[in-house]
């Protein structure tokens, strides 16, 4: 990575990007998180704060990435928004209404493959519409559209067991979108995929997002992924989980993997790196000692 001094400030943005953020701020708020906290009780009976005083707002059709060191509570935050977990303090408002339990207005894509293995791809995508009470014929037509959108029309009648990991996650996205959710929650959805597939899936997700009316809340631990996908990046800190910074991503859209080496891109990544792995903390880490276990001289390298 280039020395910090050569990179532009990550807060500097082109007029185009600045205009885009101005337009986004005009849009209505879809989701707002107010003073959210979550306390777990450990097996020893100690109270552990996983999240504390989290505040942010997400506007319509925004792409939000949440990033943070492991154990900062980013998955817990996602689950609380989904309604699968409950806050100890504060509240989550969706379109001004407090969230009470899981619902089809907040579609979720998990890191583990959660397709129903006993249903074909098509039936999996139909699950949400049928649960909402849509008639089977209409549900099937809708499902076909969404399967087409993720490019799996040829596999509509395959079982999940017959698909690769990337295909499964594409079906999972189609399944979540088939409910036309207000917000699409994604919990490290590409974490289990190989690098090649992950890159394809990222581009694919951006393309889908651009063509539908969906707000995306994307949890990841991959700095490049966050920079590549997000409008805004919510960086969480640890002990307890708190919002360290919300970065307005200055990388212009449309995004392309070529931008990975742009100074702007690198500046954002550099900033994320600093936030997640603070330099003073890295320096404080004790160096580990490796004893020499070979008789081969260093000249062989």
């Amino acid at each position: 990575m280039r020395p910090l001094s050569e990179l532009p400030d990550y807060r500097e943005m082109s007029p185009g990007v600045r205009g885009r953020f101005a337009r986004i701020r005009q849009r209505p708020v879809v989701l707002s998180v107010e003073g959210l906290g979550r306390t777990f009780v450990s097996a020893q009976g100690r109270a552990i704060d996983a999240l504390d005083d989290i505040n942010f707002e997400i506007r319509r059709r925004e792409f939000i990435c949440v990033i943070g060191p492991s154990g900062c509570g980013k998955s817990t935050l996602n689950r609380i928004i989904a309604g699968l977990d409950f806050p100890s303090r504060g509240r989550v408002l969706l379109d001004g209404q407090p969230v009470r339990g899981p619902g089809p207005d907040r579609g979720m894509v998990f890191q583990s493959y959660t397709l129903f293995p006993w249903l074909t791809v098509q039936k999996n995508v139909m699950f949400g519409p049928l649960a909402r009470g849509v008639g089977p014929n209409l549900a099937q037509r809708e499902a076909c559209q969404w399967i087409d959108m993720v490019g799996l029309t040829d596999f509509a009648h395959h079982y999940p067991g017959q698909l690769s990991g990337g295909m499964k996650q594409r079906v999972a996205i189609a399944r979540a979108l088939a409910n036309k959710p207000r917000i699409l929650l994604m919990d490290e959805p590409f974490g289990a995929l190989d690098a090649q597939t992950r890159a394809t899936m990222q581009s694919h997700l951006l393309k889908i997002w651009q063509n539908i009316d969906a707000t995306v809340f994307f949890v990841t631990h991959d700095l490049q992924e966050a920079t590549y996908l997000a409008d805004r990046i919510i960086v969480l800190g640890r002990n307890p989980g708190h919002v360290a910074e919300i970065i307005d991503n200055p990388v212009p859209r449309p995004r392309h993997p070529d931008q990975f080496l742009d100074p702007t891109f690198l500046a954002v990544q550099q900033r994320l790196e600093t936030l997640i792995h603070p330099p003073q903390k890295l320096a404080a880490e004790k160096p580990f000692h490796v004893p020499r276990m070979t008789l081969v001289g260093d000249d062989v390298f």
Partner: protein
Amino acid sequence: MAGSSWFTVTGGLSAKRSTPLIVASFVLPMAIWCLVSYVPFIWHPLVNVQVSGGSIYRIGDRPEKADFRREREEALAGNAAIRQRLAAGEPLDERSSRVKRANKAVVKQFGPYAEANGWLDARAALDEQAIYTAMTAYLAGELEPTMARLSAENVAVVEYNAGVLAELQADDAGRLALPGDRYLLSLVPQGRPENPVFLPPPHEVGLAFYDAFVTPPRREGEPWLHERLGESVVTIAQGFGLACLIGLPLGLICGAFPFFAKLTEPVVNFVSYIPPPAFGALLIAVFGIAGGPKIAMVFIAAVLPLVLMVAKTTRLMEPALLEAAQTLGASRPRLVMRVIVPGVLPNVWNDLRIVLALSWTILIIAELTGTKSGISGYMQQQGRYRNFDNVFAAMVMIGIIGFTVDQLLVLARRVLFPWAYGGPLNLTQAISTAWGRVTGWAPLAADRPAPPPPARRELSRSPADATAV
């Protein structure tokens, strides 16, 4: 598969290797059974007496080998002494009437052998004249034995005796005249080595198996074997069916809702520790002595573990699937009926197979409560008659029924849950695969062209559940 070992620890064996092993798993015990049954020197600790002679045994007795040998040696020693005395020309200094009485007993030794061969009836077999006639006819080759032939030493004995008797004239009453001046030779006991009655040879079991279906039962009014088998199957079907009807939904509800699990499972767990046969007396009091207590006992034996197993299987379901369904807007009933039930059914199906096997175990005891019925009633009766070939045949039948039903359930699993077992079942393909397994290890197979590589099927990952043979 080059380089892989027969004794590989993981990864399984190719069909070419596993098929002969599967065949051998059945053939090896059969071969051992045949060896023990048909090769006399391996075990055969008993002797089936064919010729009793002057011994303490009767024809058909099964003395131990050592005891039989002692009797035989005694007879041989007696004959040797008589022959020695004759050769030396020593006269007998015993009373003639005493010698005649002894000789009469010796002549009668041939009686049981003649009777067993059907040459004489029971009355004639006690008459010396008739026995003598049979002796001469046998020596002349006019009578064919249905039992073991006399050994060379016994033929010599009979020849000598007949020769001596031929020199004497019958008295006026037509009774056989017996020598008073010398002893006749005794028949030497003869027999063939045999296994104990509880280990019949395979062919007898096979015959019993066949006979059971074609010959009517010995006592009138007794059910045929297939009727008894039918009784057993109906008992199982009713007891196990009832258990499924109640145990499956209860287990699913307990697995899905902790409320019902806590309300039900502790007591079910407690009762399941009471062996079902312990309910026997109670069940007879409640249901009488006919079919009722048997069905009830199978039911009790099946329903308790079924509830516990199904509940546990249900709880093992991937929680992420339930969460995914909830975020898709599934209501609670939909969650149970459309996610939990289809999700756990393949594993519940395997639970059912285990519980069905358990039902058969309990059935054998259940059928002996109250009036003895079904296949176990038959086995007990035949065991009392010491017809162990029939007992074996019945056991094999239970095995065949159980094994066949289980294999059918395995097959049905692939039809019912194609998604869990690598795509839908293609019957023609399954048959050709099976045929390939049978013919695959013939040397010709190497010359055949390799089959085209499977297309998309490679993507499918079937669970490593290889209970199917």
